[in-house]
Structure formats: structure tokens, C-alpha cells
């Protein structure tokens, strides 16, 4: 009889540690991912109402309707604003590059430069991107690649706006100088890239 009582007490003594095992039991599952550095510039579109003396955007080409005034042969004003959906999800820089530093004859002839005539056409490019509004000038003084770099300290997403503008009478010599006949071109490149 006494021995039996002891056995029951021992059973009660075991119950306490066993109850402690009924505490909540949990599992943790980490979730991971990564976002790589990204700069993306989509195909440009002409901003409505942003054209002056330019036919439009044909692929990547802006074609000026009437480059010179038929009576004075000096350059006529022209402008276009192009918008690009863009994103850079990290601090970055914008680099704008003019291949020719202005509009120059496509055939590259340099011997035909009669006195008083212009043989290259300067233009400006206004850039609006996130916190930055700046102007790049292709002054057509020398035919060479020119560029400007703008540092942006934050990620930016939205509209990258580029306004190309040729002033009335623009010339690489005197203002309103008549322009030597030819087809004038330049290529503007925009880079969104790491700083």
C-alpha cells in the first residue's frame, strides 16, 4: 500500500517537465530576393505641341522641314521635345554626347567654305531628369565628339525630357550667315549609367 502511493507520487513528479514541452513550437522561414542596379531608357516619343519646323520623330531621327530661309539662306528656328520613359534605381549619372558637336555636312567636305558662309549649325539640348534641369550646348566650333556628364545622387524614375533647339539664324560663324548647301546631321546619344 505505501509502495503504491510512492509510485503515484513519482508519476506526478514526472508530469511537470512533460508539461513544459507543450510550449509553442515555431519554425522560421527566411524570404530573400535582390534588386540589381538598373538603368532603362525606353523609345522616345514627341511631346504633344513640342514641335516647331520639325516633321516628327521617324524612328530615332528628327527631320527638319525647312532648314534654311529661302530668301536669306540662313538657318530657320526649329525645335522638338522628346520624352523617354526611364528609370535608374540607384545613384547614377547622365551623359549626353554629340557626335559632331553641332550639325555638320554629311559628306564631311571641309574645303568648300566660302567667306561669309556658315558651314556648321550649333544647337542646344535642354535636359530634364528628376531633380536636374540643365542645358547641353553643341556649339559647332570644332567638329569632334563633345559630351556633358551630370551626376544624380538618387534613384530617379519617370520622364526623361530632351528638347533639341536650333536658334533662328544659328551659325558657326556670324549669326544669320547663309549656309553652305548640303545635308547636315548630328547624332545625340544619351547614357544613363553608373557614376
Amino acid at each position: 500500500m505505501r509502495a503504491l502511493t510512492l509510485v503515484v507520487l513519482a508519476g506526478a513528479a514526472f508530469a511537470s517537465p512533460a508539461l513544459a514541452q507543450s510550449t509553442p513550437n515555431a519554425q522560421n522561414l527566411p524570404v530573400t530576393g535582390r534588386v540589381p542596379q538598373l538603368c532603362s531608357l525606353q523609345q522616345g516619343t514627341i511631346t504633344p505641341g513640342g514641335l516647331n519646323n520639325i516633321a516628327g520623330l521617324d524612328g530615332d531621327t528628327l527631320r527638319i522641314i525647312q532648314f534654311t530661309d529661302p530668301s536669306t539662306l540662313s538657318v530657320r528656328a526649329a525645335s522638338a521635345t522628346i520624352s523617354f520613359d526611364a528609370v535608374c534605381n540607384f545613384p547614377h549619372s547622365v551623359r549626353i554626347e554629340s557626335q559632331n558637336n553641332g550639325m555638320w555636312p554629311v559628306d564631311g567636305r571641309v574645303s568648300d567654305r566660302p567667306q561669309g558662309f556658315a558651314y556648321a549649325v550649333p544647337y542646344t539640348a535642354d535636359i530634364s531628369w528628376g531633380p536636374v534641369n540643365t542645358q547641353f550646348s553643341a556649339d559647332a566650333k570644332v567638329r569632334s565628339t563633345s559630351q556633358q556628364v551630370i551626376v544624380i545622387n538618387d534613384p530617379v524614375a519617370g520622364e526623361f525630357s530632351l528638347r533639341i533647339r536650333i536658334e533662328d539664324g544659328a551659325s558657326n560663324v556670324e549669326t544669320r550667315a547663309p549656309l553652305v548647301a548640303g545635308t547636315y546631321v548630328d547624332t545625340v546619344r544619351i547614357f544613363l549609367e553608373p557614376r
Partner: protein
Amino acid sequence: MTRSLITLIALAALALPVSAQAQSRDTDTKTVNIVGTAPVMCFAGTLSGTGSYDLGVLIDTTSGQLRSDLSAPAQVLVGSFCTGRSTITVSATPLEAQNFTATPPSGFARRVDYTATASGWTVTPASYQTAAASNTAATQSRPTSFSGDVTVAISGFATTGGQNLRLVADGDYRGLVTVTIAAVN
């Protein structure tokens, strides 16, 4: 020799009660109660596979926005059990950029919300939405003991603040899903 001695002792023990009974009454009864307690024990199983969710690259590398096809294989808590009534609770924290800790600039976010679901334990799976202010379905009850596997899945990914926002670059986005199986006393 040893066996003989034990036998003798046993016989002596039997002889004593008979002698005692003869001195009082011929019948007596005693009740002995035997009580044992089996506590409710719960075990949240063993994680199968990696025990984590690696979503890889979170964004569409053209638009910079959250990928619409994000997914990760479900994880299984193998051999979970509870020996009595229980609850299963799932909770989760959003995926969050670990290095870019500043407030993101306009147009950007640094968090991704999602829904974590634990199914197999209860009829209605326990689920938790990291974007929700309250999660009434996060805890589900089971009235009986159970042993089996619990499948834990994540889905419904969304950029915190709106799907049009882009995620800031960061090589380390992290969140955590926690599944708890608890006894109900």
C-alpha cells in the same frame, strides 16, 4: 541457492496477513487511485528542402517594376504533430531592402508585401498578409490532435505603396515567415 532464499521470504510474507486477518475480520477493501497526466505536446515539424524562399531577381529588368511572375516553391514542415487541441499561427514580415534604409525618393519603394499561407493543419489555412493592418485569419484552431505535414507557401507579391513604384537597387532584400503550432490548454 538464491532462488530458494527468495521463495522462503515470499512465503513468510504471505503467512503474515493471514495471521493478522484472523485477529480482526475476514474482508477488507482499499482503493488506490492511479492518476497520470499526458501533457499536450506540439512539434512544428522538420523543414524540408532549404527551409527558405529565394525569389532571386525581384524586378523586371526593363521596367524596373516588380516582376509579375514571382514565385518560390512551397516549404513543408514534415511530421508536425500536436497531441491535443491546438492552434496554428502564421506571421510574416515584408521583404525589405537591408542596405538602402533611407526613405526612397518619389517613384520608388524599398519593400515588397506578400501573403504567407500555412495549410494542411486546419480546414481553413492560416494566412497572413504583410500589407494588412490586421490579420484575423492568421491563427486557426484545431479541436483534435493531429499528425501530418504543413505546407507553407508565399504568394501575392506587391510593391508596398503601389505597383507603379520601382524598387530601389539592393542586393539584399529580406523578409521572414514564422509558423507556430501551439497547444491549447
